[in-house]
């Protein structure tokens, strides 16, 4: 396992063992394993882009018009169509290389910031994905399927928004952490409930988190149509949070890149540390990988389940908190466009490893951010990105397809990764 620290020096016996077995555990084999781990996601993304291109071409009117002239013209038109669309996707999400170079050469700081803005916007778009998919991944590691991230996200956002606008006169150094903690707490409560229900009554967390999602949405709607509605507004929007609760932005408007992205990275590191460095993480992973053996070894399944669901909820709450404190500065009805649900897919894509999850979240944030420009420039509907994302996920979820297309070898041993127990569970 790559995340395990290698012992500093090999004991003589270990070297002997390696000789007996004619195998070395280090070096090339771990590099090969890394390659195997990355091969599927990379090829899945590639295949998704190829299929996406075909869909763009097939759904384009221009291609059909050209078909009337000759198949070759149609092929050319399709190529052109896809080229424009993917170029727009790239410049919209990463930036226009020519513009970046020109800006750097001119030395005009405003121009430089603008040139880099698409990239920074992608990071902004990725941030809630990072929090959300960390939440799902943590659940997976403990053998729990938290579908309630979206609901926990709303409850977290409500808590954070309330602390953000209702408390006045605090310095930012206190107000921001307080609002963040409130958001995490809100999510944690919403995660604790299904965890506790599972332990006490055996109610399956999949059902209960889905139900709690509905309750959370309606609570949010009710609060925004009454108790939490901005007094001077007829829209279902909460008051704007105090400036002291806003996450600092690093550049002048309109660049929205804010502290939340770095907080998400810290959260990812903390989750990694918790899972792989602490005894709690060992409990959690053991319960997730084999609850029978965990019980045999004296671990508390009940405590671990409740803890894992609460922590997962807290991370989900942070996803909502991030949007409120960093981006919107208020709570609006239905402000989340399904981050919590996409996060389930991202946790799978990232193999429930914090690093993988961060990379997956960056990919989706980038695709989503670039999609807007693709729609404007190439008139390719934004939905094509949803299709693309879905295709990538299908390939990830069914790696046999990728292995067959690209003739990859089966992995040698079942790797430690996502573990979801079936419905009949334990």
């Amino acid at each position: 396992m790559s995340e395990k620290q290698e012992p500093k020096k090999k004991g003589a016996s270990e070297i002997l063992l390696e000789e007996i077995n004619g195998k070395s555990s280090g070096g090339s084999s771990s590099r090969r394993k890394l390659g195997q781990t990355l091969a599927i996601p990379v090829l899945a993304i590639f295949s998704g882009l190829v299929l996406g291109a075909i869909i763009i071409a097939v759904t384009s009117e221009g291609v059909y018009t050209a078909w009337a002239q000759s198949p070759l013209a149609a092929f050319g038109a399709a190529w052109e169509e896809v080229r424009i669309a993917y170029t727009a996707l790239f410049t919209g999400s990463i930036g226009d290389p020519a513009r970046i170079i020109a800006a750097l050469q001119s030395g005009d700081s405003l121009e430089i910031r603008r040139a880099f803005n698409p990239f920074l916007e992608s990071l902004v778009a990725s941030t809630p994905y990072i929090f959300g998919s960390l939440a799902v991944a943590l659940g997976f590691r403990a053998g729990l399927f938290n579908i309630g991230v979206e609901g926990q996200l709303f409850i977290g956002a409500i808590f954070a928004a309330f602390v953000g606008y209702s408390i006045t006169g605090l310095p930012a150094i206190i107000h921001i952490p307080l609002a963040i903690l409130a958001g995490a707490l809100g999510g944690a409560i919403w995660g604790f409930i299904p965890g506790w229900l599972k332990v006490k009554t055996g109610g399956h967390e999949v059902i209960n988190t889905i139900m709690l999602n509905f309750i959370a949405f309606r609570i949010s709607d009710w609060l925004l149509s009454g108790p939490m509605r901005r007094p001077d507004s007829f829209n279902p929007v909460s008051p704007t949070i105090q400036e002291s609760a806003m996450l600092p932005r690093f550049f002048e408007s309109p660049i929205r890149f804010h502290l939340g992205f770095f907080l998400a990275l810290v959260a990812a590191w903390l989750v990694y540390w918790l899972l792989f460095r602490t005894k709690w993480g060992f409990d959690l992973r053991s319960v997730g990988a084999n609850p029978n053996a965990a019980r045999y070894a004296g671990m508390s399944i009940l405590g671990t389940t409740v803890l894992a669901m609460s922590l997962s909820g807290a991370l989900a709450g942070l996803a909502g908190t991030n949007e409120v404190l960093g981006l919107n500065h208020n709570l609006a009805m239905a402000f989340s466009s399904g981050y919590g649900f996409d996060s389930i897919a991202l946790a799978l894509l990232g193999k429930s490893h914090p690093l993988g999850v961060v990379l997956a979240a960056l990919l989706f944030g980038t695709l989503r951010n670039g999609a807007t420009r693709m729609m404007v420039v190439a008139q390719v509907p934004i939905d094509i990105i949803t299709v693309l994302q879905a295709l990538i996920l299908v390939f990830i979820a069914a790696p046999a397809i990728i292995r067959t297309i690209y003739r990859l070898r089966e992995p040698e041993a079942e790797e430690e990764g996502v573990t979801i127990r079936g419905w009949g569970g334990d």
Partner: protein
Amino acid sequence: MEPVLELRGITKRFPGVLANDQIDLTLNEGEIHALLGENGAGKTTLMNILYGLYQPDEGEVIVRGKKVEIHDPGDAIAEGIGMVHQHFMLIPVFTVTENVMLGEESLHTGNFLDRATASQRITKISQQFHLEVDPDVYVQDIAVGVQQRVEIIKLLYRNADILIFDEPTAVLTPQEADELFKIMHSLTEQGKSIIFITHKLREVLDVADRISVLRRWKMVGTTTPKKASKSKLAEMMVGREVKLGVEKNPPKVGDAVLNVNDLVVLNDRKQVAVDGISIEVHAGEILGIAGVQGNGQTELVESITGLRPPQEGTIHFLEDEITQATPREITELGAAHVPEDRQRDGLILPFPVADNLVLNTYYLPPFTQGVIMQQEAIVESAVERINEFDIRTPSPQTPAGSLSGGNQQKLIVAREFSRPIKLLIASQPTRGLDVGSIEFIHGRILEKRDEGVAVLLVSPELDEIMALSDRIAVMYRGKIVDTMPGGKATKEQIGLLMAGIEQDQEAAPKK
């Protein structure tokens, strides 16, 4: 006479490992050919090749003089090759007939199942081979030995005449095993041919016509029961001389360590599985619990180890009452538990060997300081354990799941035996292991007993119980039917008790 089945130069490689190396095997018509070998010797791979689950890299399979290619179990059945698996593939809520009909399309008339014809044929097959199976009973209502015969009928129904039996006696009482051997003979008398996979030397010598031994992926040789002896076969399997009998010092029995009183435990279906059992295990002795699997042994062990709170009764461990204690409390008092199902309860297969070696001590120093796990200390201790207990693993970071069964068991033994313990509960400690590993684990258990540890040994393997135990208790339907000193008991006596037959009821047991 032409052999009915011939394997020539079968070689199978898995990435980085050789699993079968140039194996030749011939099976004559009407013979029982035993295939003997340690776990990991390549028996299962060879049979899976024959059964179409793997393709050989080299070599050929010749059935009745014709070279064949077997790509899946369907091809195997078409060639008349069938396998009785160690774990039965039966649906409990279906009748025997329905189980036999599964997947046999010819039994359908249009969209309807033709149960009557099938049932008649089953009765005929049953009579022909003396199987005594009623086609209309539900599988869940019949004994394990009979279920196995249903598996045999499934093959005969599909006209298999080369039958592979994979460790068929693992789940049977000695009497049921004898029944099975009779059936095997009646099958071969009527022209069927049998490959009999096992690691039990006694059975091989009793039943087989010829014996082939595999060691380290190679065929060591073929012999006959007349020419071979137990010790010679063991030597062929392991590659060195093996002590077959266990040498025991006389026990130095001390005070009672474990005290179980009128214990009643329910199983998962809320039925009484342990029905008022009282036992006492003393320091320095081994109490063996014999019995056919499923007579409450599992539940007894689970309640003593804290995994299944008992309904009634008390359990004391030295001065402490542990009736309602948690597994961790019991472990911390100095109990060790080798669980019955090592993969289900004893190991976390995707986790590294090193982590599995600290599965119940990981939270204590030096493995954890504060809340941080000390990877270095864990690996260091793992390297020691690996050496001391001769666990064959490429590295401490290898997932436990990629070790062989014997090495997985050694891993558990290493973990449980290297703590200071006063009570050892070993449930089927050598299940599915080879001669070499059994010798090793038995030796370690006796060592612990000589150190003054109280040992509760639970095993359906009569040989194991008789070899190790200082006292033997026989369990049948949740009760201890008799307890006797280890040295005096005979196999027949215990076998009858295991089958629930009181000795005075059956004056002259038939042999």
